[in-house]
């Protein structure tokens, strides 16, 4: 249980700058997710925290202690790897016991043959195996202890890897895409288990993933990384509802946000040749509309965007309408409707091959030409008052 503070971390591999001046304060017991597309530097950042890579500049403190010069094992962190990195020649029990053996046995007691001379070793090993048993029971893998990793399923290996991390009671858990080798159903299940584990252990979790759903569902806060920088740091809700930049808006959210180039006319936003009921902000160049910010309306309603319906997806509780706007670029947009709203709209005859989509002004995001989000004066004042 420890806060992790990163200050001005810079890292290059050869001439490629992988991390450009990353500063991040991770709270004690927080579940923070580093998310971003591959190559954004999130894994490198995690490996630097673990001590597996050395930063070129900047410093790291874990629990208030500078760890820059410490070896990985001395930093009080445990790591779970994407490949699980289990020792194939050791049983599950020995895999989990390994960190404890390294901690509690002396160097001589770990050497072959020489270890037989130590009368203490037996007792220590018994204690270690008792601790291993406790952790295994907590993860419900106690029946697997004598097996070798090759005899386990992906999900079971995942638990063993977690067990090996948990057994030393680290201050922080570092997880490098631990779920990406699991099948979809198991991944959803493990998401819940990890969140529950975090709650139970109360330790700091730093979780790396490229999957925005994992980031959104488990974390207290998400750091979205792009191109070696933290593009935005905030709660999952903040990243979704108030993305700082167009890039954040495009990365977070499924289906992806629709982006329309806009101009201003008489104080209103014009997109795809339609004058919207949305006040233009100075410098507005892009309009981002999430699937739930659009609703079908009657033909010719002022401020509605004409579109062609491409296909409808029934997800049970909700529908996704995939359409293209009537502009030259045929911009693809998605409209999300609850099952009831969909039934009503269909009954009203709003869902023909041509349909009109009304943007919800309160949920629309405007961005300037450089991709920065524009905030109305009133809202900004409110935000600043809170901050």
């Amino acid at each position: 249980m420890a806060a992790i503070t990163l200050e001005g971390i810079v890292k290059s591999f050869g001439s490629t700058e992988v991390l450009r001046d990353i500063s991040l304060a991770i709270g004690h017991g927080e579940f923070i997710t580093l998310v971003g597309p591959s190559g954004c530097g999130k894994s490198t950042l995690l490996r630097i925290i673990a001590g597996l890579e050395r930063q070129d500049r900047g410093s790291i403190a874990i629990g208030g202690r500078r760890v820059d010069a410490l070896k990985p094992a001395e930093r009080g962190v445990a790591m779970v790897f994407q490949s699980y990195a289990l020792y194939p020649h050791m049983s599950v029990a020995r895999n989990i016991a390994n960190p404890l053996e390294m901690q509690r046995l002396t160097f001589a007691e770990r050497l072959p043959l020489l270890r037989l001379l130590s009368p203490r070793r037996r007792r220590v090993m018994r204690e270690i195996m008792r601790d291993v048993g406790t952790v295994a029971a907590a993860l419900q893998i106690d029946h697997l202890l004598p097996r070798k990793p090759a005899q386990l399923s992906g999900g079971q290996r995942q638990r063993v890897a977690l067990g090996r991390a948990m057994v030393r009671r680290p201050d922080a858990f570092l997880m490098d895409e631990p779920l990406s080798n699991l099948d979809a159903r198991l991944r959803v299940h493990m998401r819940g288990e990890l969140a529950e584990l975090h709650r139970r252990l109360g330790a700091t979790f730093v979780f790396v993933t490229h999957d925005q759903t994992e980031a959104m569902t488990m974390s207290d806060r998400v750091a979205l990384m792009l191109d070696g920088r933290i593009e935005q740091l905030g709660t999952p809700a903040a990243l979704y509802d108030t993305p700082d930049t167009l890039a954040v808006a495009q990365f977070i959210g499924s289906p992806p946000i629709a982006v329309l180039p806009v101009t201003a006319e008489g104080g209103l936003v014009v997109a795809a040749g339609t004058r919207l009921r949305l006040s233009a902000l100075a410098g507005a160049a892009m309009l981002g509309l999430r699937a739930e910010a659009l609703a079908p309306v009657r033909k010719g309603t002022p401020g509605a965007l004409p579109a062609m319906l491409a296909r409808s997806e029934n997800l049970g509780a909700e529908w996704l309408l995939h359409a293209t706007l009537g502009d030259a670029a045929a911009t693809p947009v998605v409209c999300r409707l609850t099952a009831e709203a969909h039934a009503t709209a269909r009954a009203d005859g709003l869902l023909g091959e041509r349909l009109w989509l009304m943007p919800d002004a309160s949920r629309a995001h405007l961005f300037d030409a450089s991709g920065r989000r524009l905030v109305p004066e009133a809202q900004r004042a409110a935000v600043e008052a809170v901050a």
Partner: protein
Amino acid sequence: MSTAIALAATREPLLRAGHAFAAPAALLLFLIYIVPVGVLAWLSLTDYELGAVRTEFLGLANFERALADPVFRRSIVNTFAYVAIVLPGGVGLGLLAALLVHRRIRTRSLYEVIYFLPVTSTLIAMATVWQFLLHPRLGPVREITLGLGLGEVAFLSDPTLVLPSLAAIGIWQLVGFNMILFLAGLSAIPRDLYEAAALDGAGGPVDRFLRVTWPLLGPTTMFVTITTSITAFKVFDTVAVLTQGGPTGASEVLLYAIYLEGFQYFRIGYAAALTLIFLAFILVFSVMQAAALDRRVHYG
């Protein structure tokens, strides 16, 4: 129902096609390996001599003679002694060289070439070079032994030194090859495991080697051990060029004894019996090693 019939109908031609595809390889295997061994086995039961007009069937007399033959018995003992030095030396030094070279980035290929050079050279030519190097009067090694206060050392003509000296040359020739095999084994170890070990606290060189490297090199070590012992069993070139089994039979080895019987004395029947014994040794040795190691090095 209908698919079962269709399957039955297609099985016959499929089987024939399979046999047809396997036939050329099977034929070659038969002609190149099985037939010669059969001929060898038959010869070993006769008193055939090269160019002899009449040949008699002797039964197992050749084998009885071999087991009683002091020269042959000595050559067995010498060969085992030679293997006992070359096997640990060749495997151990090959592994050591691989571990040292593996982490080099820019100089790795340079070291690979240097260590591999002896493998590519002709051992007979190199044996002549070693003869010069080890010559007690003219060789450069003389300076070293003199400097160490050992005086003149007759590496190849002292009966107690000749086998270790030949073994040293054998190791020198093998190390590069074994190093390449170990390097391949080392690069197959996932980097994640070393990183997991570093986080577990096993980041030091000894712990890392004992907990990750050595166990995961198991299959490679097994392969290297078997090929090294077969190579060592087959020692011949250096003996033929440097010592001819001398001094006083101190470097008589199996293949050299077979060579003398077969190609110097032309007692083909007897030489065939010795060859069969030699093959049996290699077979038993390899199978024993494979059986002993296989269960411990494959974790699948």
